[in-house]
């Protein structure tokens, strides 16, 4: 009973020392205590980790159901959703697209010149499409959306949670997940997908212009090249990757805001942990997509 209290942290330091005085070997006891406390801490950490991930998955599932259910799109909800979608996407769309176009010009030029110097110019545009459209743009779009929209949205939600606004809503019978979280997640996903699609299009056009110049005669060859890169498996992986990236950057900051507040002791590191988790998930998706594409 006593050790269970020690493990659970309920036993005070004085009582532990008192108990230690009654024991025959001090060093043996200390060793056991350290081991037990370490094991306990690891166990707690693992359970906490599992719980957090489960909450994340659960929230994702709930949001998916809510997204697909027509009742979420009442007139009032539509207004909120429209506001979030517009404010999350429109201000960053042009800037990100221009940035992507510039990066594409530079990278395409570098790849073309390098490939030409090795006598492999026939593979240059294929490399550009693979590197830019398949790998870089979805990742960059997701990170851009995370930094500009979903992390500030998460912080907003954290502030609402801290001020008790969400609890107020619950008391008034309004589901805060449906009212506040769903529009933000949907807007984040929408923004990510739009940015990725538009930037991919712009990158393709810019790569074509850099490669062939302002002429349409290379269109057939370019389309064929594009078709060779985008085999069904690669296309599926690309679509899934983009969707999962957008989901990760939209969902994880919201989940951190909603559930990070529960344990008051870890409140200060909740946002940071949410960010780390988000980057870890993005990394995992990227690695999985690379494995799927190239193995």
């Amino acid at each position, binding site marked *: 009973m006593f050790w269970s209290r020690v493990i659970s942290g309920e036993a005070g330091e004085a009582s532990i020392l008192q108990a230690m005085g009654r024991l025959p070997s001090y060093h043996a006891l200390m060793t056991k205590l350290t081991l037990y406390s370490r094991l306990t801490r690891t166990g707690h950490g693992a359970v906490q980790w599992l719980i957090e991930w489960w909450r994340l998955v659960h929230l994702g599932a709930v949001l998916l159901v809510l997204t697909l259910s027509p009742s979420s799109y009442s007139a009032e909800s*539509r*207004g*909120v*959703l*429209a*506001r979030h*979608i*517009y*404010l999350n*996407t*429109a201000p960053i769309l042009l800037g990100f697209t221009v940035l992507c176009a510039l990066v594409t010009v530079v990278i395409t030029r570098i790849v073309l010149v390098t490939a030409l110097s090795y006598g*492999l110019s026939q593979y240059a545009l294929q490399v550009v499409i693979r590197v830019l459209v398949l790998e870089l743009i979805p990742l960059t779009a997701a990170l851009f959306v995370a930094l500009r929209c979903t992390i500030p949205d998460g912080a907003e939600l*954290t*502030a*609402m949670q*801290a*001020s*008790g*606004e969400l609890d*107020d809503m619950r008391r008034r019978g309004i589901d805060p997940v449906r009212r506040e979280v769903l529009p933000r997640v949907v807007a984040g996903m*929408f923004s990510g*997908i*739009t940015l990725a*699609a*538009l930037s*991919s*299009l712009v990158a393709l056009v810019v790569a074509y212009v850099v490669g062939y110049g302002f002429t349409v005669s290379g269109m057939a060859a370019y*389309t*064929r090249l*594009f*078709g*060779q890169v*985008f*085999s*069904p498996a690669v*296309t599926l992986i690309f679509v899934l990757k983009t969707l999962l990236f957008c989901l990760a950057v939209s969902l994880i900051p919201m989940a951190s805001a909603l559930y990070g507040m529960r344990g*008051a*002791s*870890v*409140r*200060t*590191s909740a946002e940071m942990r949410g960010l780390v988790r988000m980057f870890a998930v993005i990394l995992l998706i990227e690695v999985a997509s690379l494995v799927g594409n190239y193995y």
Partner: protein
Amino acid sequence: MSSLHDPLPPQPAPPVEPEASLQSAAASTAQVASLEFKARLLLVFMLLLLCGSALYVLYARGAFEATQKLVLMADDSEGVVIGMDLTFSGFPIGRVRRIELAEDGKARILVDVAAKDAHWLRTSSVFTLVRGIVGSTNIRAYSGILTDPALPDGAVRSVLQGDASAEIPRVISAAKELIENLNALTGSSGSVGTSLANLQILTTRLNGPGGALTVLLGSEQEAKKIILTLDRANALLTKLDGLAAKADTQMFGEKGVMPETRATIVQLNTLLGEAHTSLKKVDAVLLDAQAVSGNVKDATADLGALRGEVDANLRKIESLVNEINRKWPFARDTEIKLP
């Protein structure tokens, strides 16, 4: 874990009034004019982008083009991947749709040829599968006779395979053989080694007594013989020299052959002068003879004139007789007797 040992309690977030939040939301909504319309516009834009991209991918994969099938049979499908091009004169006209193992153990490469480009393939077309050392494998079609009948749909053709990398082992084995031969040549028992040894013996002999003569004749004794022969030839030449001096005296001395010959030539000259004078006399005689013949010629010319005159007289007499005949037409005897 630092938060657990943090002496300060965590700072609570600044309280946000629910009303204020709602007001700010309302204000931001008001700030964006015709928000829902713009949001819908964005939504439509995104849907268009996605649909357009999907259609472009389908188009690029050849989903909308009419195709005809072509089955290529290859011994080995290594390097052939689904989606790779079948090229004709460098232009892609078809793409590999499927690769499967045939019942006879060969690889069946199913190619979709675009219907608009299918006319390049004829029944006599040849298909090759070429694997380069660098770069991907290429399937190429060659049509030598474009007037042959077009290749039917679903035609089965075998592929000629050319593999640059397959040549490497053969080249390596040939190079190895060459190196072994070189080793055998340059070894101590090889012909090059033997030649070098002989060359060494040769140079030793060249440097030794007798020198090149020993090398040429095989032994020193023979070389000595040659030297002896040379000495004798020298003595002979000295004798010949004396002989030549004597012959010179005989030929060109005061009473030699040459002065006498010269006197003979002088006499011959005198004889020739006399002969010349005789010839001049003959010439004068000949001139006289020519004058005589000229006179004869003139006489002959005079004879011609005389004959002409006789002829004229005869004609006159004939005309006279004719006239008499005309004046005496009854005369039976028309013959006129000339005096």
